[in-house]
C-alpha cells in the first residue's frame, strides 16, 4: 500500500492519527448503515416479489379475458366501448424516508366512490366478457400502483446500498490501510531520526570525553 506524500513530522503524525480515528468510526457507522439497509432491502425485495407475482397473475387474467372479449366483439365495437373512460382518479405522490433514502409514497383517490362505476359503455352492443376484463383490471390497479412504489423504493435502496458499500470498501481497503501505513512510516522515520540522534550524541560524547581526558595519548604512553 502506497504511503502518502507527506512530511514525516510529529505534527503530521498526530493529524493522521486523528484522521484514522475518524475513518475507523466512519467505517463502522457506514457498515452498520449498510447492514441495516441490506436488511430492509431484503425484506422489501421479498414483498416486491410476492406483489409482482400477484400483479402478473392478475394481469395475465385480464389479458385472457380481454382476448376473449376481443374474440366475440368486433374491434370497432370494442374500441368504441373503451374510447372514453368513466372513472377518474387523482394520483398523489409524496416523499417518505427509509434510512435517509428518499422514497416515493403513491396514493390515489377515485373521483366516484362507487366501485362498480368503472364500466364506461352501454350494454346493448357489448359482450359480458368485457365486464370481467374491466373489473379485474380495476381490481389490479391499486396493486400496480403499490408495485410501482415498491419497485422504485427497492431501486433507490439498491442504489444507496451500492453507494454505501463503495464507501465502506473505500474506507476499509484504501483509506484506512493508507493511513495506517503512513502512520507506521512516519513513526519509523521518527524513530529512525531518534536513533540517529542518539548515536550522534553518543559519538559527540565520546569525542568530548576524548578531548577532555585525552585517553588515546595516555594509552600510548603506557
Amino acid at each position: 500500500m502506497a504511503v502518502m506524500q507527506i512530511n514525516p513530522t510529529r505534527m503530521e503524525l498526530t493529524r493522521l492519527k486523528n484522521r484514522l480515528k475518524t475513518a475507523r468510526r466512519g467505517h463502522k457507522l457506514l457498515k452498520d448503515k449498510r447492514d441495516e439497509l441490506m436488511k430492509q432491502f431484503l425484506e422489501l425485495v421479498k414483498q416486491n416479489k410476492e406483489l409482482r407475482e400477484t400483479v402478473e397473475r392478475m394481469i395475465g387474467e385480464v389479458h385472457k379475458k380481454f382476448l376473449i372479449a376481443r374474440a366475440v366483439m368486433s374491434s370497432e365495437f370494442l374500441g368504441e366501448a373503451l374510447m372514453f373512460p368513466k372513472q377518474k382518479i387523482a394520483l398523489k405522490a409524496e416523499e417518505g424516508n427509509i434510512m435517509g433514502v428518499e422514497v416515493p409514497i403513491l396514493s390515489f383517490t377515485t373521483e366516484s366512490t362507487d366501485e362498480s362505476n368503472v364500466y364506461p359503455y352501454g350494454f346493448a352492443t357489448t359482450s359480458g366478457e368485457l365486464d370481467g376484463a374491466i373489473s379485474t383490471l380495476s381490481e389490479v390497479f391499486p396493486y400496480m400502483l403499490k408495485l410501482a412504489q415498491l419497485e422504485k423504493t427497492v431501486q433507490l435502496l439498491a442504489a444507496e446500498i451500492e453507494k454505501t458499500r463503495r464507501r465502506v470498501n473505500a474506507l476499509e481497503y484504501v483509506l484506512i490501510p493508507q493511513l495506517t501505513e503512513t502512520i507506521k512510516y512516519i513513526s519509523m522515520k521518527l524513530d529512525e531520526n531518534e536513533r540517529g540522534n542518539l548515536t550522534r550524541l553518543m559519538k559527540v560524547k565520546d569525542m568530548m570525553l576524548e578531548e577532555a581526558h585525552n585517553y588515546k595519548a595516555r594509552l600510548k604512553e603506557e
Partner: protein
Amino acid sequence: MISLSYDTEYAYAVARIQVIENKLLNKDSLYRMVDARTIDEAVKMLQESGYSFKSSSNNDPYEIEESLKLEYKRLYDLMAEIAPEPEVFKIFRLKNDYHNLKVIIKSEYKGYAQDELLLDTSTIPYSELKLMVRDRKLDDMSEEMRNAVLDCVETFNKTSDPQVIDLILDRAAAIEAINIARASKKRFIIELNKIIIDLTNISSFLRVRLMGKTGDFLGNVLLPGGKVNQDLLLENLEKGINGLMEVLASTEYEKLLISSAESYEKGIMSTYEKLSDNYILDFVKKHKYSVFDVEPLVGYLFAKENEIRNVRIIMTGKINNIPGEIIKERLRETYV
C-alpha cells in the same frame, strides 16, 4: 300489404340466397379450422370459402379484422342489391349508425377523432353523419336519432359521464328499430326484433347483477319494446338469476336461462351469450323455408353475421394460441 310484384322478386332473391347459403361454413369446417395446425392452414380454409385476404402472411390480427370487415360490407351490399324491400334491412344496419354516432359524439368530447372505429355499413354514411353532428344540423336524421343526439349533448354537459351517451343511443336505436319493424308490417321482423330486445335486456339484467349495481341503474339500461315486462326485471334484480328463472318460467326463454344458470353463478357470461346467439339463429332458421318473403334473406344475414363472429373467435384464438377446447366452447351454432 305486400304487392304481388314483390312475390316474384322475392322468389328470385330467395333462390339466390339458397345457392349462396350452401357456401356458409358448417360446423365441421369450423371445427377443422379450430384443429388446423397452423394459422395459414386455417386461413386457407377461409379463402376457399370466399373470404379474401390481402396477403398470405396472416399472423397479423388487424389483417384478419380487415378481411372480416370486408365480408360484412359484402354481406350488406348483397342484401341491398337483392332485397326487394331494402328498407326492411335498415333495421339491421341501424346499430351501425348508432355505433358511429357514439364514436362521433365521444370523439367530440375527447377532443380528437378516432375515425378507424367508424363503420361503413351504416345507413347514413359516416362522413355525412360527422358533418351533421359537427354542425348540429340534425334535420336529416330520424326523429329518434335527433332527440337522442340532443339528449346526449345535454346530459353529458351536466354529468360528464360517457356511459350515458351509450345508454341514450342504445335506447334510441331500440325505439327506432321497433318503429321500422312496425312500419314493415312483417310479423317475422317484429317478432325477431322483440326477441333481440328481450335477450339484450336479460343479458343487461344478468350483467348489472354481476356488477352489483342497483335497480335504478338497470332502469336506465333496459330497452323498451320487448315481450318481457321491464318492471318484472327491475323487481327481481335482487334475486338474481333464480328470480329471473321464476319470472320467466314457462316462457320461451326458460330453457335458455336454465342452461346458462350454472356458469352464470360462477360469474361467467359467455354461456348465456352463446346460447342467446344460438336462440336468435334458431328462430330465423325455423323460418327459412318460406319462399315469397323476407325470412330467408334475414336468415342468411344472421347466419353470415354469426359465421363472421365464429371466424373471429377461431382466428383470435388461433393467433393467440388459445386451446382448441376453449375456442370450441364459445363457437355458436351454425345455420347450415
